[in-house]
């Protein structure tokens, strides 16, 4: 591994590492370049920084630079000691509690809570007041005892959730011992949390030692940053304006603390990419990432066309298949004549994701037409670009996704079509929900958990129908619930009080409340079990007949689409591979990818 690959890319982490390495070097080598003993008094009293005394002198003529570098050594040593010991304790308590659960966990949880809530510094003060002789070691032990609880709590929560993950369940099923699971499966997954806890404990240890020493409760016979501040304060340094006496140690604590926290940013961002700030890929959110996976497929396939990539051993059967799909021409049939006029005309839309590895194409030149009252099924595996396309139409794309071409023309009755992609912020806000609404994939996550169903109807109505009275709004919300088969009184429930199927119906009811022309349904039934799925679909079909809205229905379930759609569009690797009336797709699919999908359906059907 090259050195350069170890050097982090994030500027924040770099700055943090530079700071911490600087102070470590200062602690290790500083005393070698200091000319004086930290405790040697001299005749230069309260001298400001000079060439002789780089950071000036104290009231008794001690050289502050010598004290400062010596203090760096001791303060950082205390911080390190505290972090190592309290981290070990936190890992043991947090992990055992989280893994073994039951009585063990309850006991550990209560002990952790006690130490978490009883304030640390007062406890430290009281404990140190009773120690007969306060050496640096006893101070460090007392600090370690009072500072493990926060990390233990975090690790317990993480262990509890890891315990339920597939890879841990699998290890348990194969009969691995508990300790092996803890050491081989759980601890490695918690390394970012442990590392982050470690960094904060170093800061906490340095701060606690400094605070205690400053109060005169530390080890005042040794020179640490805290005891320097204590003597500066008791020597009334600030009354003499002797800033050089107390500024360096305090500033050093703050800077080293900032350095460690900056390194922690790197750990946080590694563990949760959503926290990243800055350019390019760094702001990707979940939707971005989801579509990105599809983009990656298309990147792989486009690379496969290039000569140097052909010899790559990673090209497997799957890539070869992708290659075949890519070469086959898209099959676009004229849509069946429908009574309604065109309401949405998607023309040559292209969406790119700039990434650190180059640009990937999420949507590649897709054109589709939606008529009034039509159900357009959009099929494709996850990552095929179908969500990216619907998010483009709903203007919900997040950075780093960029629409690089095309138009989405929306037609109001008797008016010229307008391009949704060119709407101003206010035009977009008015267009949303009133003319185009969205039902999200998982209603579990699409409803705000802390606001009642009524509140989630009401905010839409208040902003889009300002003239409606409260009683009218409430009556409308109840009526919408009844229309999706839910008792109107449930309007005051919170999402967690409803079953999965009910939540999805509520989401549909909210989508209908302004009677929009178009509803985008992004896999609305995927998260539901089969029976509920069937009920919800029937409900949607009935409501479509009542209200006459058009639907863009995305799913990977082609069988479902064949049953409900007027037309079907099949996407693969960001490209539209086949598009036409549903019957035509069923009977005379021409693109190899569509045929592969249909064949797999037929096989399933044959087996059933």
């Amino acid at each position, binding site marked *: 591994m090259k050195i350069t690959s170890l050097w982090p890319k994030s500027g924040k982490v770099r700055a943090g590492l530079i700071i911490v390495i600087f102070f470590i070097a200062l602690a290790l080598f500083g005393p070698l370049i200091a000319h004086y003993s930290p405790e040697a008094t001299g005749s230069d009293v309260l001298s400001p920084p000079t060439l002789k005394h780089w950071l000036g002198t104290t009231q008794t003529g001690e050289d502050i630079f010598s004290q400062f570098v010596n203090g760096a050594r001791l303060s950082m040593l205390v911080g390190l000691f505290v972090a190592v010991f309290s981290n070990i304790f936190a890992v043991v308590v947090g992990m055992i509690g989280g893994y073994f659960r039951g009585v063990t966990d309850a006991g550990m949880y209560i002990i952790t809570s006690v130490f978490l809530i009883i304030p640390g510094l007062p406890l430290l003060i009281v404990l140190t007041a009773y120690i007969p002789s306060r050496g640096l070691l006893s101070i460090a032990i007392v600090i370690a005892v009072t500072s493990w609880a926060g990390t233990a709590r975090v690790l317990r929560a993480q262990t509890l959730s890891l315990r339920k993950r597939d890879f841990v369940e699998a290890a348990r099923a194969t009969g691995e011992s508990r300790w092996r699971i803890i050491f081989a499966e759980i601890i490695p997954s918690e390394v970012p949390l442990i590392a982050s806890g470690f960094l904060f404990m170093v800061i906490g240890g340095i701060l606690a030692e400094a605070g205690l020493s400053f109060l005169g409760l530390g080890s005042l016979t040794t020179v640490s940053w805290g005891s320097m501040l204590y003597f500066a304060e008791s020597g009334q340094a600030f009354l003499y304006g002797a800033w050089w006496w*107390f500024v360096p140690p305090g500033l050093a604590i703050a800077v080293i603390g*900032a350095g460690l926290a900056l390194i922690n940013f790197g750990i946080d961002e590694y563990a949760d990419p959503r926290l990243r700030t800055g350019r390019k890929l760094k702001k990707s959110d979940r939707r971005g990432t989801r579509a990105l996976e599809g983009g990656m497929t298309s990147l792989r396939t486009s690379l496969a066309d290039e000569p140097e990539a052909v010899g790559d051993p990673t090209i497997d059967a799957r890539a070869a298949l992708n290659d075949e799909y890519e070469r086959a021409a898209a099959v676009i049939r004229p849509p069946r004549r429908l009574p309604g006029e065109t309401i949405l005309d998607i023309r040559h839309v292209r969406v790119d994701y700039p990434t650190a590895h180059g640009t990937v194409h999420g949507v590649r030149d897709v054109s589709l037409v939606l008529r009034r009252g039509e159900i357009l099924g959009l099929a494709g595996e996850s990552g095929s670009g179908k969500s990216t396309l619907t998010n483009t139409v709903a203007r919900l794309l997040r950075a780093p996704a960029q629409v690089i071409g095309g138009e989405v023309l929306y037609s109001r009755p008797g008016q010229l079509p307008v391009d949704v992609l060119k709407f101003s912020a206010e035009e977009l806000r008015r267009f949303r929900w009133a003319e185009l609404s969205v039902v999200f994939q998982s209603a579990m996550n699409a409803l705000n958990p802390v606001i009642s169903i009524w509140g989630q109807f009401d905010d839409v109505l208040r902003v889009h129908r300002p003239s409606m009275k409260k009683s009218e709004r409430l009556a409308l919300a109840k009526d919408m619930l009844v229309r999706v088969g839910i008792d109107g009184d449930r309007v005051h429930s919170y999402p967690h009080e409803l079953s999965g199927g009910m939540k999805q119906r509520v989401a549909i009811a909210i989508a209908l409340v302004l009677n929009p022309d178009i509803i985008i349904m992004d896999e609305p039934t995927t998260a539901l079990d089969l029976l509920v799925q069937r009920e919800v679909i029937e409900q949607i079909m009935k409501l479509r007949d009542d209200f006459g809205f058009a639907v863009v229905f995305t799913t990977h379930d082609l069988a479902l689409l064949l049953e409900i759609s007027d037309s079907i569009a099949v996407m693969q690797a960001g490209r539209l591979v086949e598009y036409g009336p549903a019957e035509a797709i069923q009977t005379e699919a021409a693109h190899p990818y569509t045929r592969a999908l249909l064949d797999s359906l037929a096989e399933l059907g044959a087996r059933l």
Partner: protein
Amino acid sequence: MKYFLRKLGLYAFIAWAAITLNFLIPRLMPGDPVGLLVNKLHGNIDPNAIAALKKAFGITNAPMINQYWDYLVNLSHGDLGVSLTYYPVPVSDVITSALPWTLGLVGITTIISFFVGTALGIWLSWRRGTWTDSIVPAMTFFSAVPYFWLALVLVLIFGVTLGWVPLSGAYDTGTTPGVNAPFIGSILQHAVLPAVTIVLASFAGWILGMRNMMMTTLGEDYVSMAEAKGLRTRTVMVRYAARNAILPSVTSFALALGSVVGGSILTEVIFNYPGVGYTLFLAVQSQDFPLMQGLFLIISLTVIVANLLADIIYIFLDPRTRSEG
């Protein structure tokens, strides 16, 4: 309700643990408080006085369990013993005169710092991807700056050099305590610098916590749905994103409060502010063990009550806790 009762039970246990810890520390730590005092006076102490001191501490030759029972009985009468420094003033009286200053200073600054920090955290997450992202690393400096050092720097600049504000105490001794303009004005004048210190040293933690949670929440489907609903940006940010993102901040109050209380002790010491922190410092310096123990107990119990309040607020903020069980 079940959630509330469980929390109440937990806090009752923690309070009991704090009370018991307070009983055990002087008895289990290697140094014997009376012995320490005797050493301090270099043995120039009457054996009768030693016996009196032991009695004052409740350290007798009686079995531990009897001592514990006596301690609990005394405590239930609000009897925390007698202060050695302010002999024969009861510890409870010393604490009662110090507590309002700290509750006023630390209470108000903590609330200000929580709201300012949380609001800034929301604002920063709103503006992610713009120049304001560069403020975030700078906040780490503030989150790591030692309270007492910040206080010293502020004293040097605004107290000593500029002379804008008084250097120590809680009010001007020339004023008459009571509800009158000069006295209240003097209190505010004296509180400015300690308050600024506590806010500056603690608000960065709230900013970082809130921004992190906001970034996570902004990726949730319900925020996308709120956006798709055509709600105003403000509504999306506050009613959907912030309303959910603030929940962990309320929960992590325990973690934060401990460090604020600790920091305020140091701040009070620097400004000679007559609150519990400064009194604790004086008690430790003069080895006034009964006063020290009493203060530790009161500080712990106050923090426990503050946490209980935070949990009650949480019940109002998160409907899921209300219907559980």
